[in-house]
């Protein structure tokens, strides 16, 4: 059960998109998401699809992986689509018994469905092409200007890095505790929802105790190596902007300009 879990969605590769600075990728993803909400018609989405397809092509991530990200929200998409189609009032196109499909409904259904799909694919491209650790570094650097107003950028990023390191350890630990409790007669699988939820408590308490034992050791090891926070720390792999980051940023600015022009000028 625990063997099945892959941490995150990272798809290893050395494409042009993989090689971008994580900061560039985070900011571009933000800009992309905002641009999706600026689009007002299908022509705008056609431009977006073209832009996104080219980015996916450059990233060399197989389409199979891209669409895998859609699986968990498949039901939302279908649900959104159906309800929008049947519930929107307007000019009737088809009438089957009590269900009517209107022109506006059909338009809404496709519009909302497409936006949702583009939203998920676009933002999963960030996690597909960036290692969680690099993402954390990027976030730390992006947040560091806010240190002046009291945002503990380094501490948050450090916590994130440690957490990422310990997730597999704790998954394994959970598995062990689960088996140990089952051997003692614990039942995690039957009963109604509330009962099943309650059955997790004998799992959580030992998990915490073991997690905090790990924390104790780690804190001691860090202090023994004179860890004292973010100031004056140097990095093994310093992040640097390259010409391709500038290129990517220009492409993104160009894309948003086209979307804005298409939606609000022409």
């Amino acid at each position: 059960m625990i063997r099945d879990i892959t941490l995150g969605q990272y798809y290893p590769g050395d494409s042009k998109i993989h090689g971008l600075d994580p900061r560039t990728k985070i900011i571009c993803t933000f800009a992309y998401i905002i641009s999706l909400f600026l689009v007002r018609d299908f022509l705008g989405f056609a431009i977006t699809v073209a832009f996104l397809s080219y980015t996916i092509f450059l990233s060399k991530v197989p389409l199979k992986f891209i669409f895998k990200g859609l699986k968990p929200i498949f039901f939302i998409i279908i649900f959104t689509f159906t309800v929008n189609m049947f519930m929107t009032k307007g000019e009737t196109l088809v009438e089957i018994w009590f269900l009517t499909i209107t022109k506006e409904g059909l338009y809404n259904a496709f519009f909302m469905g497409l936006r949702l799909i583009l939203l998920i694919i676009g933002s999963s491209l960030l996690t597909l092409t960036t290692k969680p650790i690099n993402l954390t570094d990027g976030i730390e650097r992006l947040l560091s200007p806010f240190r002046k107003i009291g945002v503990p950028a380094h501490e948050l990023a450090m916590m994130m890095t440690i957490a990422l390191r310990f997730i597999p350890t704790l998954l394994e630990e959970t598995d062990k505790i689960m088996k140990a409790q089952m051997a003692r007669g614990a039942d995690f699988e039957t009963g109604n929802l509330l009962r099943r939820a309650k059955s997790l408590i004998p799992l959580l308490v030992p998990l915490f105790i073991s997690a905090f034992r790990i924390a104790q050791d780690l804190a001691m090891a860090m202090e023994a190596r004179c860890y004292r926070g973010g100031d004056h720390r140097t990095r093994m792999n310093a992040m640097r902007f390259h010409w391709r980051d500038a290129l990517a940023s220009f492409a993104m600015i160009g894309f948003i300009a086209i979307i804005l022009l298409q939606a609000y000028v022409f």
Partner: protein
Amino acid sequence: MKTKYLVHGAVIAAVYTALTLLLMPLSYGVMQIRVSEALTVLPALSPAAIPGLFIGCFVANMLGPNGMIDIILGSSATLLAALASYKLRNRPLLVPLPPVLANGLIIGPMLYYVYAVPVPLWACILWVALGEAIACYGIGLPLLRYMSKRKSIFR
């Protein structure tokens, strides 16, 4: 002292993420009951849980399938709730309330506006709050009771 706070936060974040990933299909999506949200009672026991839960939710959503908006709004909801739970730490029965409210009022509208889930707004809010209440009151409250007896591990 500071290192310990940092590491405690990190471990709480890791437990949150591990539990979320372990109970994967139930943890994400519209009809979610995220068992790991039971951990939102922890600020009552240790202030390190405030950044811990925030990071935990951030990482869990980062590894999850729902994209950037869920990462930002979901973890802010958790952060607000954790701060409020910390303030309410002397009233155990109220400790699980902030996450129910914060998630209902932030994630509900998010589903409605961003993911365009086509049910009325109040239903989105109620639905999220209900899933959250099952996790926070059903598991969180008993967890708080047991962990209070073992407060020494948080020191």
